[in-house]
């Protein structure tokens, strides 16, 4: 018997083989309308938080909040903010009747590691939504990945204007406030407290968040009459700021603004106090220090040095509204201490995502995005809030806080000086500080 290879035979074999290879792809495309469409009785969320690295404590608090949110969504515990949330579509039976499960990833506060862990949760674990993070660099990187992968990204703690500015994406949503809002809320309080004739010296962390915060605070304070003497960028890796603090003594600046976060903030503030800046009198006025973005977890590291220092924050556990109290009670009862602002924003983002899915009646990211765009809600701790459609940024009241002079406990480090109404921190979608990017169109993936 001969086995002769002919041109016709080769074409037939190729066609059959090609069709065979293509078959699973055709079925796949037809079976799933979007990435990781849940098919069983469960749905998986991906919690991508810093579990190692400098922001690991914030990451741990974010993870606690996520686990609490999952409990509440699945009908366990006391329900927390589900009881105070203005939208009432969530019934404590998971999301669209599917029990909520979760996987976790470690961002290490590094963009590449954060993208790798998000990718793994999407591709291997079937996560339908990614949320978390404690850095704007990470948020921008993961948001971009989620856009490409076709899943929703609900940002955690990210304060750079760029996240919902030049780097915004259709699949990404931010509940946390931003640097512009800090400036708009803080500047009037600074002018009221320290006067309008002030000279400010800025030390700024040299990366996306620091740049946008410096730009925002400079603009807001100069609009009220302050003069900016100098702006100095400091490397993110800096630990000893003495070389950056001492030049301040040589100028006629009477306010030092520390655009630093985390360990940078703890060290620069500690160094500034060590060098006696707070005892200095310049231009006939007491020298003042301002930390525009405060974090209670970080403030603990600076200890007594935060006393009397003004800053802004997204949320604080001492708020007396129903939503905040419900969340603090749930969290405090479960873990034994009050939640941080990072925990708050992550908890709220999880509920908001679940609510959007329930209102849309679908896990399709485009349907979820549509449900979130322009959504107005209340009962989540910041007063009436809008998820603006044009840039996927939440607009709500902002807190101006001050380091407490006489704390009653280790958690009682900040006191709320003013709740700045949302109208004062709202800006136009085409504001120059947010220019340069476009949301693009929603990507459902698959």
């Amino acid at each position: 018997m001969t086995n002769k290879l002919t041109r016709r035979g080769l074409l037939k074999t190729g066609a059959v083989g090609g069709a065979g290879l293509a078959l699973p792809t055709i079925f796949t495309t037809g079976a799933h309308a979007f990435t990781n469409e849940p098919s069983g009785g469960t749905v998986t969320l991906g919690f991508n938080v810093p579990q190692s690295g400098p922001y690991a404590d914030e990451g741990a608090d974010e993870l606690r909040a996520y686990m609490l949110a999952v409990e509440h969504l699945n009908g366990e515990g006391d329900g927390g903010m589900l009881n105070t949330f203005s939208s009432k579509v969530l019934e404590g039976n998971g999301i669209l009747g599917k029990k909520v499960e979760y996987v976790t990833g470690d961002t290490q506060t590094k963009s590449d590691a954060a993208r790798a862990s998000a990718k793994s949760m999407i591709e291997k674990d079937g996560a339908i939504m990614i949320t978390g993070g404690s850095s704007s660099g990470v948020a921008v990187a993961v948001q971009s990945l989620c856009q490409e992968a076709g899943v929703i990204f609900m940002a955690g703690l990210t304060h750079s204007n760029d996240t919902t500015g030049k780097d915004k994406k259709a699949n990404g949503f931010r509940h946390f406030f931003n640097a512009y809002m800090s400036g708009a809320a803080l500047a009037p309080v600074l002018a009221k407290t320290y006067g309008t004739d002030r000279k400010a010296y800025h030390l700024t962390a040299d990366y996306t968040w620091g740049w946008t915060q410096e730009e925002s605070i400079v603009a807001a304070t100069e609009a009220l009459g302050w003069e900016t003497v100098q702006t100095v960028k400091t490397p993110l890796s800096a630990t000893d700021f003495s070389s950056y603090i001492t030049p301040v003594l040589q100028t006629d600046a009477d306010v030092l603004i520390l655009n630093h976060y985390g360990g940078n903030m703890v060290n620069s503030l500690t160094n500034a106090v060590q060098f006696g800046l707070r005892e200095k009198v310049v231009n006939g006025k007491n020298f003042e220090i301002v930390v525009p973005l405060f974090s209670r977890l970080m403030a603990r590291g600076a200890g007594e040095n935060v006393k009397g220092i003004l800053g802004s924050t997204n949320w604080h556990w001492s708020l007396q509204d129903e939503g905040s109290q419900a969340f603090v009670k749930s969290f405090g009862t479960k873990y034994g201490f009050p939640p941080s602002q990072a925990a708050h924003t992550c908890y709220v983002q999880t509920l908001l995502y679940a609510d959007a899915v329930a209102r849309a009646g679908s896990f399709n990211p485009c349907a979820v995005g549509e449900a979130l765009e322009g959504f107005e809600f209340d009962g989540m701790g910041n007063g009436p809030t809008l998820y603006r459609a044009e840039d996927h940024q939440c607009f709500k009241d902002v807190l101006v806080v001050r380091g407490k002079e006489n704390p009653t406990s280790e958690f009682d480090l900040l006191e709320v000086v003013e709740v700045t109404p949302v109208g004062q921190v709202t800006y136009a979608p085409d504001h120059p500080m947010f220019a340069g990017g476009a949301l693009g169109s929603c990507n459902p993936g698959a």
Partner: protein
Amino acid sequence: MDAIILQILNGLDKGSAYALIALGLTLIFGTLGVVNFAHGALFMIGAFCAVTLNKLLNLSVETVDPTRTDFLGNPLKVKTPYVETWFGPEFGHAIIDWSVPLAILFSIPIMIAIGFIMERGLIKHFYRRPHADQILVTFGLAIVLQELIKHYYGANPIQTPAPGAFRGSFDFGAMLGFDPNTIIYPYWRMIYFAFAAVIIGGVFAFLQFTTFGMVVRAGMADRETVGLLGINIDKRFTIMFGLAAAVAGLAGVMYAPINSPNYHMGMDFLVLSFVVVVVGGMGSLPGAVAAGFLLGILESFASMNEIKSILPGIDQIIIYVAAIIILLTRPRGLLGRKGVMED
């Protein structure tokens, strides 16, 4: 002029930390021939000795104050440190306030013990291995140590203040005849510099004026010959490892009030300290100290706004630029000895 004096003070202060760490590194390299990448971790553990003692002294008895409530509305639990209960509020508070100086005594036996355990338990097995193996194993050890610290103490910096009497700053300029308030410098940073000078002086005196030190120096110069004379040089070198660990630990204890300790602080200093050792000359103790202060001062001057306006970013690379220039002109470093790491 006052700006220059301020930067010199900053440089001396930074240089003190570089010099102390580099001194320990050089002691270990000079005696045991080991490139110890875990040395930064020893500095970090020293700082956490101060944190630990502060926490121990703050261990408290809890009493319920029914007149006040906590964040959940429950009766507030008020904590009173045991030392205040035992010794009275004023003396007890003073003990807590002085926890960092007290931690010097607390840390010395701990650091020597850690040094012995490190050397006997791990590093001695790598004496005859290539330097690359030593670097890998000690770097791995450093990561393990810092992760352990992070596990028990968390990732955020922990404030460890200096005694109240030394928390402020003083008018150094007025002492030198400058206008008041032009050169203000923190007390504790001056104390750190003085402390570093005492430790460095003590180590040199120990090596120079004691029989033990003389044997160690002889061993550093020619280990084989000293061994042939019937002297157990290995035992002395192990003790030197413990001494180097104690020096790094003390540098860390005293550094704690300057910048709140965190688990990563050892790594922040390690690379710079290695540059200091190389610039000073491998195996040269005076070289390590001189290079530490020299590079600290250079780094401070490079941070001046006037310099950065001409050379942006120079503060980030000045140490490496200086290292390249020095090594090009003096390949063995400032005070390097012939034959060290040249085989």
